[in-house]
């Protein structure tokens, strides 16, 4: 395999970075290995699991399938760029508070896919969120908390401070019938 190297300027999280890398390397490899941005994870390196999702020009892209050499002049956003100063992005804080990140390994990719969705549609329906995230696998959560966290974050981004995630997402559903009467 060719070990030919190339030097490019990549714009990552708004900051230009001059970086040298093997010309055949994926954006995933360059982000993690050359730029030290290990927040972007990988689960297959074959474009199957969605874990390595980043945003390029605002669109979710599988960084394992994207040649880094073709990313020059495009805007690349990773999970490291989501925080605003020392404050979490609403998606991040909602994920953390609701437990939408368990092992946290699929989380960066899902956060970015969700960010792209919310940038286009600040009030997505449950079906629209499912559609936008159907390429991202998660083995821990059973997906529900992720959906609830995105809905909560969407409300915050719209400025709807009244919105609260359903109590059932946090405490379970109220016990039905006879048992409810016992409580």
């Amino acid at each position, binding site marked *: 395999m060719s070990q030919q190297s190339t030097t490019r300027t990549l714009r990552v999280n708004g900051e230009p970075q001059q970086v040298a890398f093997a010309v055949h390397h994926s954006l995933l490899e360059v982000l993690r290995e050359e730029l030290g941005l290990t927040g972007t994870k990988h689960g297959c390196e074959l474009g199957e699991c969605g874990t390595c999702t980043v945003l390029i020009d605002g669109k979710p892209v599988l960084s394992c399938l994207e040649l880094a050499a073709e990313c020059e002049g495009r805007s690349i956003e990773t999970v490291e760029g989501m925080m605003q100063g020392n404050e*979490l992005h609403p998606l991040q804080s909602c994920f953390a508070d609701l437990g939408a990140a*368990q*092992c946290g390994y699929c989380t960066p990719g899902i956060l970015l896919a969700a960010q792209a969705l919310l940038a286009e549609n600040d009030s997505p329906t449950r079906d629209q969120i499912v559609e936008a995230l159907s390429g991202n696998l998660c083995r821990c959560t059973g997906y529900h908390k992720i959906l609830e966290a995105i809905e909560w974050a969407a409300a915050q981004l719209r400025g709807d401070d009244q919105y609260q995630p359903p109590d059932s997402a946090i405490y379970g559903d109220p016990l039905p019938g006879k048992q409810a009467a016992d409580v």
Partner: protein
Amino acid sequence: MSDTVHADDEEGPVTSDQLRLIGTPFRRVDGRAKVTGQTRFADDLSFPRMVHMKLVRSTVPHAKIVSIDTSKASAMPGVVGLLTGDSMPDPFGILPVSQDEHALCIDKVRFVGDPVVAVAALTEDQAHEAALAVEVEYQSLETIATVEEAIATPEPRIHEYGDEGNLHKKLSMEFGDVDAGFEEADQIFEDVMYFEGNTPLPMEQHATVALTEETDRITVYSSTQTPHYLHRSLAKVLGLPAARIRVIACPNGGGFGGKSDPFNHEICAAKMALALGRPVKICLTREEVFYCHRGRHPVLMKIRTGVKKDGTLTAQHLQTALDGGAYGSYGVASTYYTGALQTVTYDLPKYRFESIRAFTNKAPCGPKRGHGTPQPRFAFEVHLDKIAHQLGIDPAALRMQQLVKPDSITSNWLKVGSMGLGKCIEAVVEGSGWHQRHGKMPEGRGLGLACGSYLSGAGLPIYWNHMPQSGVQLKLDRSGGVALFCGETEIGQGSDSVIAAITAEILGIDLKDIRLCVADTDLTPVDLGSYSSRVTLMAGNAAIEAAERARTLVARGAARKLDVPARELVFADGRVFHGENPDHGISFQEAVVEAESRFGTLGTTGSYTPPRSPGRYRGAGVGPSPAYSYSAAVVEAEVDRETGIYRIEHVWMAHDVGKCINPAMVMGQIEGSVYMGLGEAMMEEQVYRRLPKKRSDALVHKHPSMLEYKSLTFAEMPPVTSYIIEDPDPNGPFGAKEVGQGPLLPMMPAVANAIFDAVGVRIDQVPIAPHMVKQAIEAKEKGKPGRFGPKSFPEIDFGVPLLVPTPAEGGDGKAINIEDAGVRDGTGTMTERKDAVKGDN
């Protein structure tokens, strides 16, 4: 009061029932790191001069290694190191009785994916290229693909140890007079069922980084659920004192049982680092993760149950046959687990259990979430549904009328503590409208009910010892901060948050004032690992002990300052104050200063050892737990009769967790278990095919990729109504029991039972594919049994059963026929058996 009174006042405060943090949905302590990308998983680490390693894996399923030629590879650009098996001759394995793996194969390979050579190079690309250039010549041996083939093919043996031929383990045990139990029955029901294997599939590919500090001192970072057991295996194979090896388990990107064994790549990375004197990293490809496997054993089962007209169970005879794959792994324990927990849900007064585990030339199976218990639970719960249907009894009522009583001992000598299954069943029955809808919905729509139970930690450690199973150390100082050291491993389940919350609760401080140091064998007290749902209960209890001791020290310091007896002090909101006069107090930090002034440097420890189980027979080591969790599920399915395609419309799940440490995290575990259980019920399978003879005859994984290994996506996940049932167990920290594995168990049988309710056919195996449903419907339409599933269970001589009288029969927990049953010393799971692999390789 005088000073001297307080100086002698050894009693500290008592932990009150008024909890402030426990039971609330606090943000998990690692939450921020996980949403910002700051969590450092093993593959995120890198060190100066680090090189990259790849493993050359066997391309044939069973063969002698004729020759290994690394000459071309060693001349490749960037290559710095090569290892073959002869450099690491000592075998290893998770269980003392099956030390049957080598870091790299010596003489023989046993499945496609078995590692043969390790190669290190300056870059990952170079290591990959060099690995391709290694030439291994094999002489193929006959392959074994199934349990049936293993029974029919005792030679050649895949391993030179095991109970006979290619049967790794064979066991037979009988609790009570089972024949008499069947005679009491009005009817005997019999089913043969099959549970296909599936794989843990954590999102994170396994990774390890090893680096040396001295010529004979090494640190290994790894994505492992069990750093302590990895530590032991490294010491054994590397031949270094354990004190010179430091294992740090990085947070795991999911485990599900798939990272619970010590692995070849971990040992090879350490060996390579010692050889090169520079850091070595390996990150497995997704394909290799499928070869590491350690997933659900495929199990064929025959279940026979004696039942009275009113539905009372009188006896059960369960036979299981496990397809173990190529190595022992946890397999001996898995074998026992396919029978051990049948008794903890419904009264089963007499019980016979027989099992075999076969070696086959496939990736080794292991302890995936639920470890050996989901398969027989599937069989039992579908079997019960059939019994209920035949007898005309409501399936929920059939279960409710014979629940195991709390604080009782089962026929196989398991001690049950709190038992909330009745409440679980009531919740899902009520919530799903079961009584109004089950059996009464339009054709194609159905409800299915099933239950389950799981351990809150195994009663015994994997190797026999008298030491604690979990330890916690606390360091307090004048800063007011508390450092918490514990060997537990965060695999996503939230164990860091559990021990931090327990400590914060008892000391009355903010979670942010606790600094965690976990899963580091040099710095943290031993915890056996994140397996068997043990951490909340065991590390949680150790944390309680350490925190209460620390609170006593601090209280005694504060008592002198406040002139209040230490036992009357309250720790809350970062303050220490008099319970009767809350204004009379000082800050926690000031109190620590008082204690440090009085006692010097402050530190406490806590440890946890489970209570001794009443069972005294060989095999009684598998099944006991300090506490059992309980779950019940109702699943609603919509089935298309034409195609057999079905959808899960809704799931109601109730889980008895004893007590929530954090309800939001409990919900996450419940929903995650429902998800994974549905995957197993509907689509997940680790299956193999034989290539044609002309094309190598190899036995290969059918689809080692995430695209073809089907698992549920966002789009397939149905709505879930979850009920948290809290029936506190006296053995649990604040009453808490497990939640990480239990709620998975009812899902598979509940799906099968829902399909029956929808279209009247029985699918006696999982995963349930649409063609199975369609074939069963077509068979029924032709007047044949409306069933899809295995036809028969093979004839197996299980030998003379070990006879153990039950508690009801006046037994003492011991077997009464050890000689007749041919039980040999040292064949159990918990003892060293030094000759286990004698002659192997």
